[in-house]
């Protein structure tokens, strides 16, 4: 029975990561016969002229086989006499950085491939930076393709020097450099006869013997509570995995964030009573008295954790949508899920050069240092002190995507919470919180053309998509805000002006506004556009012909107008000026309601 080492392989696209691991499994006789047979068969159609292509063992997804690249993390398992290994083979492409970070978050050690014919590339730096960010402390740089530079020692030494410099730049802690050939097998599992000048361990030997237990780690007892176990009213235990240190029956522990103290009465290591338990063990702890403990609390002894509602963190942004400050998420830190807001993007870090750059927005695969506020005080620590309490993810509140991952750099105390005062809550901030772009969807058209029915249905559809909306129409405007206005020209202009101003305010509040008014004059609509802002204004012309509107005559208004009972009735005794460049035109006599709504949604996609 031996220990477990989790490691990750990374490097640029053609550095040969999959080949290296494939070769290791093959050499170490760790393949099943049928896998080996399949590999040999697959290789015949491959490009290495019938020679074995070891990478085929790992590139499992169909899309990957087609494109010849690795798009997601693949996990492989092997055991030697000395150790059990789990290796995460990760994609090299910048586009899939987030998948690489997934592999890195899981690993204790990184094997980073460097192509000997190319030396250190920007990708090498990026990967090393991400590994360090995600908490890896042990690095092996495998200088690959030594066969292509004739196993030249001088060339190798130059690369080794560059690697040592990189390690200093990135503050990497434990670094080993090994010259290898993944395709030929030199220094993979067997010592290379082509490089007698290299006398240290082969890659596999190194992996089998390296000690990744951290000595810098905090020794105090820490256990985040996952759940409360209450099978009956006589038993109440707190379940979780010990994050660090150890706990024994009789220990006095503190519950955070409350700070209440109690004595450990029993410790169950899964289903067995034990006198003490250690780091890594799943336990159930009973205390000697009833105190308030729930999921998200942390039991500690001799450990200095932080209780606060704000911290500064390095984050990796992973969502397709961009990040702006003010955006709100669910943060998961320790075993606590809690609303969190990005207060400030302090700066982003050039993933390749490490340079600090000013930023107001973050795009996919970018790293930045941010101030993050939580809706209440929680227990956490810096990532350096306790990996399990300093690592967090940010979950989008609408799509539920894991939008970012991050590590706590340091806490911000209440007295330091100045950022909020400095920051204005702008339209962008409010909109970002709602996860939408505020728009005014301006429906115009004759009475009876179907504006209100359409606006109503569209609002329902938007609401179903998680959008926050408001519908303005004659009923809720004419009777309240505009009850003092009549129907002459002056009042009609004022009517539209007020509607436009209200729409703008509601857009400022982050809402998507739908307005449904005849608004017959081109000049009024232009003014509304100016008030609301042309970028946020979508003009929807409901072009149903007059004859059809008159035939429908839902409210009997056309009949009255024809009889001369309503003066200035649009279409009969007053003109309607059709928009010259409406964003969308809908004729409800030719389209069904469903067709019209789905067409609108499609058009709106580019705005939303």
């Amino acid at each position, binding site marked *: *029975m031996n220990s477990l080492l989790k490691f990750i392989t990374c490097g640029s696209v053609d550095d040969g990561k999959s080949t290296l691991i494939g070769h290791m499994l093959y050499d170490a006789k760790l393949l099943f016969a049928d896998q080996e047979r399949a590999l040999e068969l697959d290789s015949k159609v491959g490009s290495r002229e019938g020679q074995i292509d070891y990478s085929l063992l790992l590139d499992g997804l169909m899309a990957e086989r087609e494109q010849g690249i690795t798009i997601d993390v693949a*996990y492989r398992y092997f055991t030697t006499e000395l150790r059990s290994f*789990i290796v995460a083979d990760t994609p090299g492409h910048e586009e899939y950085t987030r998948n690489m970070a*997934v592999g890195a978050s899981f690993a204790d050690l990184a094997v980073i491939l460097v192509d000997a014919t190319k030396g250190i590339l920007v990708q090498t730096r990026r990967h090393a930076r991400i590994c360090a960010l995600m908490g890896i402390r042990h690095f092996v740089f495998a200088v690959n393709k030594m066969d292509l530079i004739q196993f030249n020692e001088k060339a190798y030494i130059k690369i080794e020097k560059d690697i040592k410099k990189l390690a200093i730049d990135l503050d990497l802690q434990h670094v080993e450099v090994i010259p290898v050939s993944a395709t030929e097998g030199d220094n993979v599992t067997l010592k290379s006869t082509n490089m007698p000048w290299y006398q240290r361990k082969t890659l596999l030997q190194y992996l089998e013997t390296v000690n990744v237990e951290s000595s810098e780690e905090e020794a105090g007892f820490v256990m985040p509570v996952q759940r409360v176990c*209450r099978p009956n009213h006589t038993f109440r235990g707190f379940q979780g995995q010990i994050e660090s240190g150890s706990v024994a029956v009789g220990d006095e522990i503190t519950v955070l964030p409350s700070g209440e103290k109690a004595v450990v009465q029993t410790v169950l290591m899964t289903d067995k009573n034990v006198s003490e338990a250690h780091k890594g063990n799943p336990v159930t702890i009973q205390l000697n008295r009833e105190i308030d403990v729930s999921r998200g609390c942390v039991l500690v002894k001799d450990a200095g954790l932080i209780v606060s509602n704000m911290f500064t963190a390095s984050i990796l942004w992973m969502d397709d949508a961009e990040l702006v400050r003010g955006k709100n998420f669910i943060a998961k830190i320790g075993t606590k899920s809690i609303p969190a807001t990005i207060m400030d993007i302090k700066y982003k870090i050039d993933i390749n050069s490490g340079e600090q750059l000013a930023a107001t927005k973050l795009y996919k695969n970018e790293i930045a240092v941010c101030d993050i506020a939580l809706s209440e005080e929680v227990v956490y620590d810096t990532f350096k002190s306790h990996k399990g309490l300093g690592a967090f993810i940010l979950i989008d509140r609408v799509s*539920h995507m894991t939008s970012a991952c991050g590590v706590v750099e340091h806490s911000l105390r209440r007295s330091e919470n100045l950022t909020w005062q400095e920051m204005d809550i702008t339209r962008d901030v409010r909109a970002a919180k709602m996860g939408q772009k505020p728009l005014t969807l301006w429906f115009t058209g004759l009475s009876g053309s179907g504006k209100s029915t359409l606006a109503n249905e569209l609002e329902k559809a938007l609401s179903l998509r998680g959008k926050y909306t408001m519908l303005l129409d004659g009923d809720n405007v004419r009777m309240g805000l505009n009850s003092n206005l009549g129907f002459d020209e002056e009042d009609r202009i004022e009517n539209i002006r007020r509607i436009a101003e209200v729409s703008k305010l509601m857009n400022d509040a982050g809402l998507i506004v739908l307005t449904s008014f005849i608004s017959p004059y081109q000049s009024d609509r232009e003014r509304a556009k100016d008030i609301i802002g042309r970028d946020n204004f979508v003009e929807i012309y409901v072009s149903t012909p007059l004859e059809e509107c008159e035939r429908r005559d839902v409210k009997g208004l056309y009949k009255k107008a024809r009889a001369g009972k309503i003066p200035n009735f649009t279409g009969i005794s007053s003109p309607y000026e059709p928009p010259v460049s409406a964003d969308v035109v809908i004729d409800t006599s030719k389209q069904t309601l469903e067709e019209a709504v789905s067409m609108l949604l499609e058009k709106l996609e580019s705005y939303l």
Partner: protein
Amino acid sequence: MADNYTHLDALEAEAIYIIREVAAECEKPVMLYSIGKDSSVMLHLAMKAFYPEKPPFPFMHIDTTWKFHEMIEFRDRMAREKGIEMLVYTNEEAVAQGINPFDHGSAYTDIMKTQALKQALDKYGFTAAFGGGRRDEEKSRAKERIFSFRNASHAWDPKNQRPEMWKQYNTQINKGESMRVFPISNWTEKDIWQYIAREKIDIVPLYFAKERPVVYRDGNIIMVDDDRLRLLPGEKVEYKSVRFRTLGCYPLTGGVESTADTLEAIVEETLGAVNSERTSRVIDHEAAGSMERRKREGYF
């Protein structure tokens, strides 16, 4: 970390952490139970994870009606002994139509397993389902997350998986969507056997070699579990000492000739195994990529 903390301890702790997370965060979980050795390990882990409480969710078996008889007996005994709720679901409509593994080939697996599973999950409205899938079983499984998001039609999108960092599992879903959760993702077949031996976990006797009535068919050894197995011309029933490395529907599950009738002997055989376990599962013999295709459609 204690000095004697082995790789099995690490795997056990990881699985228990995952199982507890689901119980704490997911609205309506269920643990799928296929009766095989991986399910037996998962059940054992669930019992340990919540002790002294019983697992706070039901277990569910998708019964194709073609499972080995010994499996069904074992399932019912386990439910009784462990005091857990065991739901059994069968696609009754397909049974009424006479869908069977002989005449309907790969459609059979789809209808009786994949479709039945979807029907069952929809029927009970489960929001999270534990499965015993392991990443070392097949290449596309090797790439699946531990918390694997499924849309409202239970489909998996391998190109757009949620990033999964550290132990921070994202369990958030919208109505109609669900999670498949694989707590033993990182276990190998060898780990499973070693853990069964260490924890003395009860498993279906079919895993142990015993003289059984079998026929040889297309390179597989098929057990004649009842008289529904139609013999083809030239086939005859023989008595051989065989055991099974995976369990499923008996007409689709190939055995291996073996005399390993103890756990130690099985572990010994497994360590020196020449074929990875999935080759004895008949449906996995199709072209490379077939498992990924099936999974995208909702197969576990």
